[in-house]
């Protein structure tokens, strides 16, 4: 609290710009100057052809240096153009930049009004700015010490990538993974669509470089159980989970990943957290496309694993000793579900979103089958082919060229998988798939198959414990929710907690790695200096006025930005500046006016209104 809290400045300098006629053609700038000079508190009022020019700025600097003024108002164009210019000039004069207020008399006056009315309105706006300026306080950016340390939760591809790039940037990293292995779902793939890199290579190389890096502590079979603190200064507790067996550290185990070490129970002091908690593969309901009823119906992940051990019989695929002459692959299993058509899960939920990666994954698998086993037919049953990404459409083309036959079904009439009827023509296959095919003019077509592969989608990982503990928002799709898809796409609403990869939404490996690096760059920007510099526009409590009602805490939009503390036996509100967003939601609800927003205070607005209505008061 500064001593001058309730005092008004008497040394406001007002500078009015001609803007080369843009203002002065419509506003009588000299009249404004003359009238403004009479406003109480105004020490100096000057005009200039171009306030933004060096001579214009010099006027301000000189007056400040000479001590003629201690508050500045410039009346010129829109603040978006030159507010920073004039704050800069004030800084150059050795003063605090926050003693500045801007009056917009070009965009809001001279460009929309002419004649006396323009001059009168300009005067009012300048007067209002003076009213506010008199109450302005010098402010300092809020400096919060921050640990140059990031904790990454999840040892899948996104977590590994985030850890890798953060360590390269010189930050310390702890990587926490629940399972004994690093690599997540990617480790369970064989080759990666659309280019066909070996998933094992991708994972092994990245995981080993993470394990070998001294700046990264890898904790496998570990779980986050405690979360406390705030941005830049989080305290985490990690506990070992007795889940499964590991191998020697750094060993690559096919379809499981790279083995990590065994963790101690520990506490981590960290500056930021990256959520790379990944996804869960959709598990078909019993009976969904015959899954569970027929052994020949498998999910795509299961198929990929078995296919890695495929054998050939004269160019025909052999899986687990069974000759596979014909395969049906069905898209959108557990994705793009529609209320009223699809069955809800046990918790009454539907996966209404598209899982994004399945189309390419299916087509990639289909190409691999056809190219390696030309004797095996592949039927692809889809709703829309979504080969959106680079080289993905080409994969679709390649699949067509390789002889994959496509069928388009509508969600209202999905394919039916049934056991083949005895004696029916062409039915020496164990299963038959029937579908009303949009491509064949809506006719029902039928195919005999040895295997049905279901392209199961992605579901949000089960991280309810973390969500509850860290108070993270989740979307209606149950994935972790970012603040805004474009303005803050990897930021969660908890400051210093970022989202990476499929924790946020279904993504390809490339997209997950991009997401991870994008989250990492935010963490690096945040913590790079070892301290955070936050806008000074935060709430401020006057303990003398605070009655401890707690209304402000309830109104606060940011978790933990306001708290109640005991002070001399009285409950008082306290602002945690590092968490305050500066929205002012608390200001409105305080019954005693004890809380206000620095730099944008309610009192300042009241002063502005007073200036706008000042002549009304005179006339009464």
């Amino acid at each position, binding site marked *: 609290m500064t001593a001058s809290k309730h005092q*008004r400045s008497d040394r406001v300098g007002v500078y009015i710009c001609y803007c080369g006629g843009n203002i002065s053609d419509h506003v009588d700038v000299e009249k404004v100057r003359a009238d403004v000079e009479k406003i*109480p*508190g105004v020490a100096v009022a000057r005009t200039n052809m171009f306030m933004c020019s060096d001579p214009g700025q010099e006027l301000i600097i000189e007056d400040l240096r000479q001590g003629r003024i201690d508050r500045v108002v410039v009346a010129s164009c*829109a*603040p*978006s153009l030159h507010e920073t210019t004039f704050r800069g000039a004030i800084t150059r004069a050795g003063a605090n930049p926050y003693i500045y207020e801007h009056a*917009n008399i*070009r*965009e*809001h006056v001279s*460009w*929309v*009004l*002419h004649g006396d*009315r*323009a001059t*009168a*309105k300009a005067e*009012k*706006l300048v007067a*209002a700015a003076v*009213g506010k300026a*008199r109450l302005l306080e010098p402010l300092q950016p809020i400096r919060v010490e921050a640990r140059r340390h990031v904790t990454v939760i999840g040892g899948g591809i996104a977590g590994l990538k985030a850890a890798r790039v953060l360590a390269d940037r010189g930050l310390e990293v702890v990587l926490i993974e629940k399972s004994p292995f690093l690599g997540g779902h990617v480790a369970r793939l064989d080759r990666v669509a659309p280019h066909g890199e070996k998933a094992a290579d991708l994972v092994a190389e990245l995981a080993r470089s993470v394990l070998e890096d001294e700046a990264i502590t890898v904790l496998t079979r570990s779980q986050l159980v405690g979360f406390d603190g705030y941005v830049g200064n989080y305290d985490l507790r990690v506990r070992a989970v007795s889940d499964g067996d590991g191998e020697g550290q750094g060993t690559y185990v096919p379809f499981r990943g790279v083995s990590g070490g065994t963790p101690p129970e520990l506490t981590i002091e960290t500056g930021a957290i990256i959520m790379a908690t990944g996804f869960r593969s959709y598990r078909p309901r019993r009976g969904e496309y015959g899954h569970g009823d027929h052994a020949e119906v498998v999910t795509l992940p299961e198929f990929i694993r078995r296919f890695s051990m495929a054998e050939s019989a004269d160019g025909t695929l052999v899986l687990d000793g069974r000759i596979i002459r014909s395969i049906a692959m069905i898209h959108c299993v557990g994705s793009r579900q529609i209320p009223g058509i699809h069955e809800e899960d046990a918790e009454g939920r539907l996966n209404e979103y598209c899982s994004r990666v399945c189309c390419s994954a299916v087509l990639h698998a289909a190409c691999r089958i056809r190219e390696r086993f030309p004797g095996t037919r592949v039927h692809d049953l889809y709703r829309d082919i979504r080969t959106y990404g680079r080289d993905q459409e080409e994969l679709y083309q390649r699949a067509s060229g390789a002889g994959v036959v496509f069928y388009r079904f509508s969600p209202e009439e999905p394919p039916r998988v049934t056991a083949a009827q005895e004696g029916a023509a062409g039915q020496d296959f164990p299963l038959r798939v029937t579908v009303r095919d949009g491509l064949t003019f809506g006719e029902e077509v039928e195919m005999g198959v040895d295997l049905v592969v279901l392209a199961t989608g992605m579901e949000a990982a089960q991280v309810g414990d973390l969500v509850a503990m860290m108070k993270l928002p989740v979307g209606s799709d149950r994935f972790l929710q970012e*603040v*805004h898809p474009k*303005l803050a796409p990897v930021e969660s*609403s908890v400051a210093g907690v970022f989202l990476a990869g499929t924790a946020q939404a279904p993504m390809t490996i490339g997209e997950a790695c991009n997401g991870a690096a994008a989250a990492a760059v935010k963490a690096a920007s945040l913590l790079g200096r070892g301290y955070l510099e936050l806008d000074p*526009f935060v709430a401020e409590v006057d303990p003398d006025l605070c009655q401890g009602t707690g209304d402000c805490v309830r*109104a606060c*939009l940011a978790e933990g930005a306001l708290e109640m503390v005991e002070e001399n036996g009285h409950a008082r509100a306290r602002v945690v500046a590092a968490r305050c*967003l*500066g*929205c*002012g*939601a608390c*200001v*409105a*609800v*305080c019954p005693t006016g004890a809380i206000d*927003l620095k730099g*944008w205070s*309610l009192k300042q*607005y*009241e*002063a*502005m*209104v*007073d*200036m*706008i*209505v*000042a002549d*009304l*008061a005179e006339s*009464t």
Partner: protein
Amino acid sequence: MASQESEGRILILATESCAYPGADSVGQAHSSYPANTYILRVRAPVMFPERFYLDCFAKGISGIIIMSCGEECPWEGAYKALADRIDSVYRMMRERDIDIRRLRLTAICTVCNRAFLKEVNQMNEIVSELGPPGQLQTGTVQAVDSQ
């Protein structure tokens, strides 16, 4: 437009991320609108308590337009809190016999020139029709430093 312009003063609380640049955009387009409009730049209008609005009317402001970011508000939850607040201001205005058309909550984007002009002109018509709000409480105004 000038001939129909009311003497009543209209206060516009415009959010710094949406509506205030929106008003700048109207200026850039040189679209004229009534002169009795005073645009104040705010971070989030959710900071104003009920009494702020009532005081404004008491001080002689004839109409207030809150130009928010609407659903694009950068503060999650602020818009809803604001809407609730305005409902309660309306209640209080009715109790005090102040025509609730004098206060309006709207969303204006950075390039919503037409919407801006429409809001301003409509409010101008309203305050022309209604005249100044009740009796002035000079006491509040005298709080202005007048040495």
